């Protein structure tokens, strides 16, 4: 018996719809849980005051600052380094054994579990270089951790810029560097920004690599050499040591909201860039 092809179409469509709803559904359940459990405990005092009694009472202001400092400094270090590496790999070298080795290295680094970065950072920065648990050790470790993502996404974005655009730029008397900065990077900017966004997400949510290097001090990190605590680490400790589930959910809600805020800002910047270079 022949099956009606339109019937198959319907079944397939139904199946795909179900898969999409399932994926989005899980996301909604997670966010909704965090919202319901965290929202009642969020107020001005929670956001803008220091924790007391190991976090049982009080707020999370120092860890908000700690998160912002760690993420911002890591991104500021990793973005130029990563984009620079990507430019070197795509524009300034020919495909060779050497570039293949670099690329293989980058890909391997991207797959390493973050706890290994944490262990490396602890042994190298904290102990060997005598930085101690500090913002600096945390920033350097996080930078190394997110670098592969930025390199890979930037490289793909730069590669997808058509060769013709480069040739036109050269034909109008541009040098290689002028072509890279005025044509290639602006055209690749949305792709590069996507990589930066992914990296911000990874750095904001990171616990293993950070707890080993930046420590978990509840005080303000007043200098690069001070220990501090990010929101993710704070959440982890609150939940894991059973200090306060309410505060843990409230912290994670702030964490989710801040990631949302960063995304909105990034899309705003991206649209400005796209509208200028299109």
């Amino acid at each position, binding site marked *: 018996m022949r099956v009606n092809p339109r019937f198959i179409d319907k079944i397939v469509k139904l199946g795909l719809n179900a898969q999409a709803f399932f994926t989005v559904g899980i996301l909604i359940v997670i966010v909704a849980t965090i919202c319901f459990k965290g929202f009642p405990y969020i107020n001005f005092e929670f956001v803008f005051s220091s924790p007391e009694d190991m976090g049982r009472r009080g707020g999370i202001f120092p860890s908000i600052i700690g998160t912002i400092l760690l993420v911002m400094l890591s991104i500021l270090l990793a973005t130029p380094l990563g984009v620079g590496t990507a430019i070197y790999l795509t524009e300034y070298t020919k495909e060779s054994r050497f570039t293949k080795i670099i690329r293989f290295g980058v890909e391997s680094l991207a797959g390493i579990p973050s706890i290994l970065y944490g262990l490396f950072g602890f042994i190298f920065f904290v102990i060997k270089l005598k930085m101690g648990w500090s913002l600096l050790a945390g920033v350097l470790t996080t930078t190394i951790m997110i670098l592969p993502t930025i390199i890979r996404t930037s490289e793909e974005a730069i590669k997808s810029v058509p060769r013709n*655009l480069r*040739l*036109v730029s050269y*034909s*109008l008397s*541009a040098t290689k560097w002028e072509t890279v900065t005025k044509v290639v990077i602006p055209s690749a900017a949305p792709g590069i920004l996507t990589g930066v966004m992914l990296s911000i997400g990874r750095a904001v949510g990171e616990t293993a690599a950070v707890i080993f290097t930046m420590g978990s001090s509840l005080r303000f990190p007043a200098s690069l050499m001070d220990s501090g605590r990010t929101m993710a680490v704070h959440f982890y400790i609150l939940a894991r040591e059973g200090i306060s589930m309410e505060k843990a959910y409230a912290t994670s809600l702030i964490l989710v909201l801040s990631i949302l805020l960063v995304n909105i800002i990034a899309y705003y910047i991206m649209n400005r860039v796209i509208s200028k*270079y299109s």
Partner: protein
Amino acid sequence: MEIKIQIEKLKISFGNIEVLKGVSINVYKNRITGFMGPAGSGKSTLISAVNRMIDYEENVKIEGKIYIDDIDVINDDIEGVSLRRQIGTVFAVPIPLPRSVYDNIAYGPRLKGITERSKLDIIVEDSLKKAFLWGEMKDRLNISALKLSGGQQQRLCLARSLALKPEIILLDEPCSGLDPISTAKIEDALSGLKNEYTIILVSNNTKQIARISDYSAFFYMGEMIEYGTTEKIFTNPSEKRTEGYLSGKFG
């Protein structure tokens, strides 16, 4: 008549394939010279050696000389960048840069260090007028160049290369993807430009060469078969192969 570009025994190969087999030709100043010939005849490769865009290809070997005025651009110590300030190039497909019409034209001048808005305004208007595009674009300078039609984009590319105030313009099959009306506009623009510029027009369209070029050269399999005034080449060619190509027997 003054010679602007003098090419002597130019040989170019990519890897083991010899694309040009010793071509010598004089291109006259303030004239349009048409290069025609079937695909693979080496005409596009020849002009990419003149503006040294060939440097961006791999495995290239070049022998021979290309004098522009008195400088040998192949052998003398010449920066491709400064050479291309004197030579404008228009490619086969229109390639607007992803930015506004104004910024496309101002791209080259800005690289030269011209940043004053008033100076750039004059250059943009001047270049667009020469490319017969000012009328259509004067109120739309800030729209994206990607939104223009193919014919407008190609005239924009011509205007963009004029903005550097070059002495020579190379056009590599500039009308291959354009409709007859757009083609006519480009041809009108080129005819008006030859008083100020030395123009080389590579084209597969022999009728176009006949319409607007003063001199014509016929290339075949990496050799220049015949060169002379367009009138002579089209009415009374000396070579059988030229005649055959022009009458459509091969090519």
